[in-house]
């Protein structure tokens, strides 16, 4: 279907949102909470655009507004600039010490005090929660203390340690650096203040991944845990062996029976 952005016409597929379509035209719309792999959330209120309805322009967020046939959009107007600046101003008011917020606010015309400090606050953009729920699918993160049942308490990200697999995806996607994954000694790793044991590679013995993550991988893919417990270097070596094995399978089966049994992948028959 065709839509019009800033006077240019684009062919867009159904179900797409305005933000990605504008991006294709190299129109950069500011955002703090959007990620192309995640469902749009509309939390930061910075990606404002205006849509023409009748004679009126009405503002909406570009990330979670699905396109409709012949939708007419503009991404820049005094109203949009004012509203984006107002939202950035509020974010800056709340998180003055967080560099990411300061940079964005400055870009949108807010007067920002110069400082080198970075307090890396959680700005509740929800990227980590969505990553954990939609990509990793373990639901170890969720929003808590929201709505009328928590009078006075500030909303926050709740952490369910029992479900966490210490994959670090939340730390990777966090825009402010609030979530950090850290090493504890050589054999443990910490995230959200929970410490995870690292598993040793069954071939080379190197501590290479959190045990919880390997257990989850094994559970989700029906791969035996022993198979998951091989580090990437040793697994490459093993794959080469298996290829060789496959080529000379009959011969090797005849001559080297014991060795074969030990190496064979259960799914390769």
């Amino acid at each position: 279907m065709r839509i019009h952005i800033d006077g240019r016409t684009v062919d867009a597929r159904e179900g797409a949102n305005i933000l990605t379509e504008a991006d294709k035209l190299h129109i950069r719309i500011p955002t703090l909470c959007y990620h192309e792999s995640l469902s749009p959330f509309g939390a930061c209120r910075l990606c404002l655009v205006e849509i023409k309805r009748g004679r009126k322009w009405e503002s909406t967020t570009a990330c979670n507004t699905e396109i409709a046939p012949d939708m007419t959009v503009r991404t820049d107007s005094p109203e949009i600039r004012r509203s984006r600046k107002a939202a950035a101003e509020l974010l800056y008011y709340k998180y003055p010490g967080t560099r990411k917020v300061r940079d964005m606010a400055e870009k949108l015309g807010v007067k920002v005090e110069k400082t080198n400090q970075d307090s890396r606050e959680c700005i509740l953009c929800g990227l980590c929660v969505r990553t954990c729920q939609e990509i990793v699918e373990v639901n170890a993160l969720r929003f808590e203390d929201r709505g009328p049942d928590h009078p006075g308490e500030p909303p926050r990200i709740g952490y369910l340690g029992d479900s966490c697999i210490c994959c670090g995806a939340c730390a990777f996607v966090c825009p402010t650096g609030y979530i950090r994954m850290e090493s504890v000694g050589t054999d443990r790793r910490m995230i959200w203040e929970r410490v995870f044991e690292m598993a040793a590679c069954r071939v080379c013995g190197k501590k290479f991944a959190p045990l919880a993550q390997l257990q989850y991988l094994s559970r989700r893919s029906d791969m035996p845990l022993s198979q998951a417990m091989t580090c990437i270097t040793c697994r490459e070596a093993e794959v080469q062996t298996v290829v060789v094995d496959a080529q000379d399978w009959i011969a090797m089966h005849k001559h080297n029976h014991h060795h074969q049994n030990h190496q064979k992948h259960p799914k390769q028959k």
Partner: protein
Amino acid sequence: MKKQHPIEKGNQQKKSLPSRDVFPLMSTWGGKFTDRRKTTALPKNSCPEKLKDLPFNGLMAWHGIVVRKADTDIPSLTYAYLREARKISCGECSVCMIGIDRILEIFRKFIEGDGTRRDLKTIEEIAHEVAVNGKCNFGRSAALVPVADAIRYFKNDFLALIRGDRALVNHGYESAVTAPCSEACPAGLPITAYIEKIKNFQFSESLALIRSKCILPGVVGRACTHPCEAVCVRGKVDEPLAIRLLKRAAADQDLQTGCSPLPLPRLSKKEKVCIIGAGPAGLAAAYHLRLLGYGVTIFDGLPVMGGMAAVGIPDYRLPKEVLLHETNLIKRMGVEVFLNRNIDLLKWEDLKKKGFKALFLAVGAHRGADIGLAGESELVEGFEQGIEFLRSVQDRHSDIKPRKKVFILGGGNVAVDCARSCLRLGFEHVEILYRRSRKEMPALPEEIAEAEKEGVKIRYLTSPVKVHSKWGRIEGLECVKMKLGEPDDSGRRKPIPVTGSNFVLKADMVIAATGQEINTSFLTEKDRKALTRANKIWVDPLTCRTDREGVFAGGDCVTGPATLIEALDMGNRAARSIDAHLQGKPIAAQNVYAGIDTTLQRDNGFLPTKRAVRVNLLPESDRLADFREVEPGFSQSEAMEEARRCLRCYRLMVWEVDKTKQEQPEGRSK
């Protein structure tokens, strides 16, 4: 009418108060400013008439400000409103909660005496930005809307505050929160709150909220008539939320994992309460009374718990293990349940001697009502009452011999349930006869559509007049064609028979599903006189008390055939009332929002559309072999996705209490 009316401290008492009671004195309801301090030619409907019942001086609500007394302290009221609004604002988007925080900080500046005129401008700017850029309806149409009104129309009060001529004072405030969906729900379930929990992956917490008002969540999540969805504000944008299925998702998690048992009573009270009837009303009352620590004993004539939910809703809509699970949870709290106890004659005096301090009658309306058909009263084999037929389907559906042609009389949910059950039993031709047209049919539209898909025929504008029988066995049904006349008391067009249009349908079975009534034969003659009016038990609508001391009643036996959720609501209210009666407390319950249209909100511009999450119903070809459930529930992630569509239409009201009025009604939630 002038745009602005300064309230100046010195002269307001002298000239502004009118001699007679004018309501409202000033109002900004819906964004329209009306002021009646000086004029007598008054515009009507400047705020909901119902607000008159609430004893307040000044009130600030999502839709505007209402002032009853000219000396109301608007800045202080605004401050109180902001602090309540801050509790509701979820913080999901960056403007609403932070905006309120920012304005609260400005108010603290006012308190310290550091405020400037510029601050008022800032407040107005923030209020405007939150209204145009808030993510949900709370931000867009509630959070700061009346705050902007306050600054716009009562600016001089704020200027006086900045000058130091007045101060922010706590005059005593009360508040209440609701949402259009909760208002439409007969039991007033905290719908927005439990949806919020589902959105946040807190299914158990969500279920706990649901159970506070609806103790059969899995049952209601399957079989509710969901009036909440009809008023859902999202419905005006794209489609209403699937509120019923969300409730079911919370309940299903417990059904599958059993991880959310009911709380146990924290203390034990010595008084015992007797409940007649283990249906929704009886169970709701039992749960709440047991939770308060009372000893509870239930008697029921049926072999299972659940009343009409057990014998009136077929398995393909409500699998009975769901009901069994939820009723067993109530039983496990220590409620004594005696089933198969048909009460021939109820004597309250005898029960009192056994130690019961209160009696709750919730016997339901299980008897099919006669429809005044010629030949109806004769015992004709093949002529059945709908509700009795459904019960026999529950009890022993393998014993029912399918016949060729069955006609079902009536247009309600019972008629549709009977028809769809007949198909599943193997009847060849199943046809509903309804005397009005499709538009007036009271059954749920989705149920009618599914029935037709499965093969049920519906003949409209047809009314039965006579049952034809031969040797005690049904042979046919004489009908007459109808036409629609003027609307009657129910608002639907009245059907009028077309003279001379009689015709006979050959029938092997006829099921009359046109209504149910209460069987009062268990009452003594004296009690029947004292307790019933128009063959229903009469109670005080607020307290569920009957005219006899210590006897309460609720559910279908009071209302006539109604919905599950209405029965649950009466059970909830009766429990509160019985507790108040036994403890000698007064009953404080009044919904301050009753009669106020909470679906109203100021225009909030463009909202991104998102279609409802669909569930795939069982294909029609797989349905008719047995009574397996037709509708699946949401998975957890589907439920969370659907919950994210909620627009959070919280409606907040904060009012300065009029201390001269003695009675102070309480809000539903504070």
